[in-house]
């Protein structure tokens, strides 16, 4: 763990985007994105479909040419180079394995195109196939493989070329839930083993949180925020980010000073210091349902922010209970643990809600 944080401090940019934009006719698919992805980093581009994340990945791959901006891979400008001239390889969303070739021929394809000597090809293909644990399946055709196996072949086919950066377009989207979880684990392990930069695109926030060192959230072609999974969850700076990663309540207010927000009901609460918005701006306070405490009326500790309301609905989820608590100015969702020692409330109960000052994040509305 320490090794990783240390190397994170010193690493140079594997992929560097400066003002990268892509227009399709009148549509702006990617809008002036600035991004540095570190060497041997596992980076996720997260966003809803149509947000420009796949277009961004395809520009790094060379499958789309940027309309504007600079794109460097390890310091070399590659913006207008065709894909076959870039030190990157891609795992496509539906794997795009060549159906008329065996597993071994699929994996060997990139090496053959680069005219690597035959003996070297066979050792490297063998290595790559055993890396993804597909030994013994060399002679099969892609249509004789399961989804997970095809995924592994696609990984081997890309990794055998020893790319400087591996790009993955929704690598797990085509797999069923159980297989997806298995492959998540394998992918992470594989990245540690080969130690190269992985950039992957996903719309699945859990996948992004589980796999990546850092996440970049995109919406409408813009890159909204970049950070570690914890930063993205704990300290989102944009309402979209807070809403897309996990669930959240959004309380309208105005930033009065660096650490105080005046909520729409006139109440003042302390918030963690922010620099993404300026004092006097309209903001929203993001309050995660599981970070709100719920208790009997007047039971809230006096030194923390608190609100009072009435339980409107309750939803039992097994390990937790989700309450919708109606205040006179908004409704707040609260997720409480379901344990014998936690008080259970029902619709109509008057309750207090409170939270620690550092449990919230101030976001751009």
């Amino acid at each position, binding site marked *: 763990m320490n090794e990783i944080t240390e190397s994170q401090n010193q690493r140079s940019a594997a992929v560097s985007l400066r003002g990268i934009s892509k227009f399709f006719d009148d549509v702006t698919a990617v809008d002036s994105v600035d991004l540095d992805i570190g060497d041997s980093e596992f980076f996720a581009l997260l966003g809803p479909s149509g947000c420009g994340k796949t277009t961004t990945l395809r520009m790094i791959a*060379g499958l789309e040419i940027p309309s504007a901006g600079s794109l460097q891979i390890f310091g070399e400008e590659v913006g207008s180079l065709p*894909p*076959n001239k870039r030190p*990157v390889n891609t795992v*496509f969303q539906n794997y795009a394995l*060549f*159906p008329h070739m065996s597993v071994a021929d699929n994996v060997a394809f990139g090496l053959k195109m680069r005219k690597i000597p035959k003996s070297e090809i066979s050792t490297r293909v063998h290595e790559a196939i055993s890396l993804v644990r597909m030994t013994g399946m060399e002679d099969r055709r892609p249509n*004789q493989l399961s989804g997970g196996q095809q995924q592994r072949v696609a990984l081997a*086919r890309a990794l055998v070329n020893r790319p400087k950066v591996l790009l993955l377009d929704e690598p797990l989207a085509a797999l069923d839930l159980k297989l997806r979880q298995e492959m998540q684990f394998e992918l992470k392990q594989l990245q540690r083993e080969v130690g190269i930069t992985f950039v992957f695109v996903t719309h699945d926030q859990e996948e992004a949180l589980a796999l990546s060192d850092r996440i970049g959230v995109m919406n409408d072609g813009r890159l909204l925020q970049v950070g570690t999974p914890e930063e993205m969850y704990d300290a989102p700076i944009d309402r979209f980010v807070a809403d897309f990663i996990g669930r959240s309540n959004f309380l309208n207010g105005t930033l009065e000073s660096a650490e105080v927000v005046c909520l729409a009901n006139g109440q003042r609460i302390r918030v963690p210091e922010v620099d993404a918005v300026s004092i006097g701006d309209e903001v929203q306070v993001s309050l995660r349902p599981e970070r709100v405490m719920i208790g009997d009326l007047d039971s809230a500790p006096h030194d923390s922010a608190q609100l009072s309301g009435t339980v409107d609905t309750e939803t039992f989820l097994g390990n937790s209970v989700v309450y919708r608590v109606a205040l006179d100015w908004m409704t707040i969702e609260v997720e409480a643990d379901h344990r014998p020692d936690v008080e259970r409330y029902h619709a109509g109960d008057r309750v207090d809600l409170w939270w620690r000052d550092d449990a919230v994040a101030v976001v751009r509305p």
Partner: protein
Amino acid sequence: MSHSHQRRLPVWALRTNGGAVLLFLYAPIILLVILSFSASRIPGQWGGFTTEWYATLFDDSRLQRTISVSVRVALVSTLIATVLGTMAALALERFTFRGRRVFDALLYLPIIIPDVTMAVMMLMFFSQSFNVVDAVFGLGISKGFGTIVVSHVAFNIAFVSVVVRARIAGMNATLEQAASDLYASRWQAFRYVTLPLIAPGVFGGALLALTLSLDDVVVTQFVAGPGSTTLPVYVFSLIRKGVTPTINSVSVIMLVASLILVAGSVALQRANASRGRQQLQTSGGTS
């Protein structure tokens, strides 16, 4: 009661219909085969068994020449039309360029316009351009083998590209992107990924072109020159001169040749399919 009655009637009607269709399709062919062995001088009459007409066929040097012209025209025009038609299909399916829609529409014209119109067009084109070539370079070119080939290529490109396009449309374009991502140049991506995958379409298009070329009478008759008559044109001219039973035997030979062609392509497909199945079974056994 009324239900079963209603049901029995369509079965009876369907059977009759099916029988009628088969009779309509195959009776003339069977009749032709039988009559080609008839000893009677009148082509439509049975006069005892003979193979005389086949024997005269093999002595007829003019007929053999026309067969040779037909085969050569068909092979050369098929080759050219297949290459050009495949290129046109790729351009239309994989690239966007100015005038793509116009090109698309124009490409289909030879399929739509009547043969006679096509024939007159080609004839006028050749005579005009030969005049120009004669005036400018002083070269006297005449109609013949070359003009037939060019005309056949002209209509076959359309058919080949239609068949190949259907195949390309069914092929995932991501595969070509994957090839270029794996360091393949445009040509290598085509050679190692696109071509093997569209090969059945290209082969099918070529077979269609071959058949159309071997079959064509109208266009060929307009653009052929002396000494470059194809078999169908020759057969057609035989009928005009007065029908002899030789026509029957020529037709039977053409029939047999096309049957062999079709059977060959079916056998090839079967062999491919069973090889694929075997692979599936053997690899299934090892797991």
